[in-house]
């Protein structure tokens, strides 16, 4: 199992942000976590990526606990945050090499890894372009390449296509599609079509709780609804607990 959560909770004083989350994600699975703003998706990702300490419960990634062994966990994961996370004054190549090196690659290895990533993400002709001058779509593409350069076993993608135009979104989908089966991907998104198209399984969170879990088809048959949007709206309505 790649990810194992047992009653994982996070609260700030009285406010419970993630409430008793229990979940298992298999290795190589593409898992989408859906929810309205404030549902607890980003907090969950932050706990799994060792950025936040859970208030209670347990989170184990590939056999290592995120609280007791964060340094081991950090070697195995990477993240593409909600906003584009790039060093603006560095070129595309320098950004990639920089991330490879902070994950332990030497100069030569970093150069080779950056070249591979630029080939995979069709960034080679932009290798010497400063990241801040790239368009939003290309910046997001670079951001995901930076997340993959460390060869993570678990990859967190926090709203990777937010704010992109249709063409840029589709291009990114094609890239993400290629990750299926190779890397365990945990994706948070507001785009339901994105989750339906890419994810093996979908979890819907509301007010910190996991309200539904399954493949898109399983959810539709369980809820007796035809669209994921209807299911999402019914599970995340005000008053649903």
């Amino acid at each position, binding site marked *: 199992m790649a990810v194992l959560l047992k009653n994982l909770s996070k609260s700030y004083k009285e406010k419970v942000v993630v409430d008793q989350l229990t979940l298992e994600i298999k290795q190589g699975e593409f898992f989408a976590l859906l929810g309205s703003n404030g549902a607890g998706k980003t907090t969950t990702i932050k706990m799994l990526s060792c950025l936040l300490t859970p208030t209670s419960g347990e989170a184990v990634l590939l056999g290592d606990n995120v609280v007791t062994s964060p340094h081991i966990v950090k070697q195995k994961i990477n993240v593409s945050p909600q906003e584009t996370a790039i060093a603006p004054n560095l070129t595309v190549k*320098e950004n990639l090499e920089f991330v490879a090196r902070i994950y332990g690659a030497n100069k030569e290895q970093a150069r080779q890894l950056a070249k591979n990533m630029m080939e995979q993400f069709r960034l080679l002709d932009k290798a010497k372009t400063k990241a801040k001058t790239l368009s939003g779509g290309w910046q997001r593409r670079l951001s995901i390449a930076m997340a993959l350069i460390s060869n993570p076993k678990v990859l967190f993608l926090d709203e990777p296509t937010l704010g992109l135009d249709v063409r840029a979104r589709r291009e990114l989908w094609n890239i993400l599609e290629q990750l299926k089966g190779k890397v365990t991907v945990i994706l948070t998104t507001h785009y339901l079509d994105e989750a339906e198209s890419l994810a093996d399984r979908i979890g819907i969170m509301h007010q910190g709780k996991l309200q539904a879990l399954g493949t898109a088809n399983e959810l539709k048959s369980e809820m007796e609804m035809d669209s994921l949007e209807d299911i999402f709206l019914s599970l995340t309505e005000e008053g649903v607990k």
Partner: protein
Amino acid sequence: MRFVAFSSRNQKEIIRDPLTLLFGIGLPIVIMWLFTIMQGNMPMELYRIENLAPGVIVFSFSFLTLFSGMLLGKDKSSSLLMRIFVSPLKSSEYMIGYTIPLFIIAFIQIIVCFITAFVLDLQFDWNVLVAIIVLLFNALLYISFGLLLGTFFTDKQVGGLFAIFVNSSAWLSGTWFSLDMIGGLFEKIAYALPFVHAVDSTRFALKGEYSEILVPSLWVLVYTLIIFIIAIIGFKKKMKS
């Protein structure tokens, strides 16, 4: 050696901003040249190059505070720092990674300012080399102030706070006038802060009065250590918040 990659990235970010060169290196040269002209028309020997050069070089270090504070503040407000927090870098490695490139810029500032001072009639002797060592040590004080500001404030706030910092550190440093000309509480406050001690230790080094260097250097050391410790603790907390 992960911090080497991080410090290399920071160095590129700072150097590729042209304002760095303009303020950090160009301004001290202009100031030294203008005050030397003024000295030619003054009855007192306040701005003799032996007195002026140490003060102006220490003053130029204020821009290290600006650069480090702005870079850290900017990183904090972008998602890049989240990406780096997820990586295996430790909080002490962040601080070293931010400090090294600024230390290199400090060295360049010192060399450029001394070359200007030689053109303006400063005599070269071995004391200059001792003064360079003392100055490098003093530069750490100003870098630590920047890391402290960048840890607790955003880049925009750092810009505003820097205006207060650069004025108060300059007024209280004894560079532009002798502090005993005002005396009283002003002088007491100045000597309770580290800025005048940084200038004094450099002046003693340049005059070859080595036995006088220890006390002001201790003031600078204690302040530098305290500020670095607060910045690291604050940064650790920010990483978990």
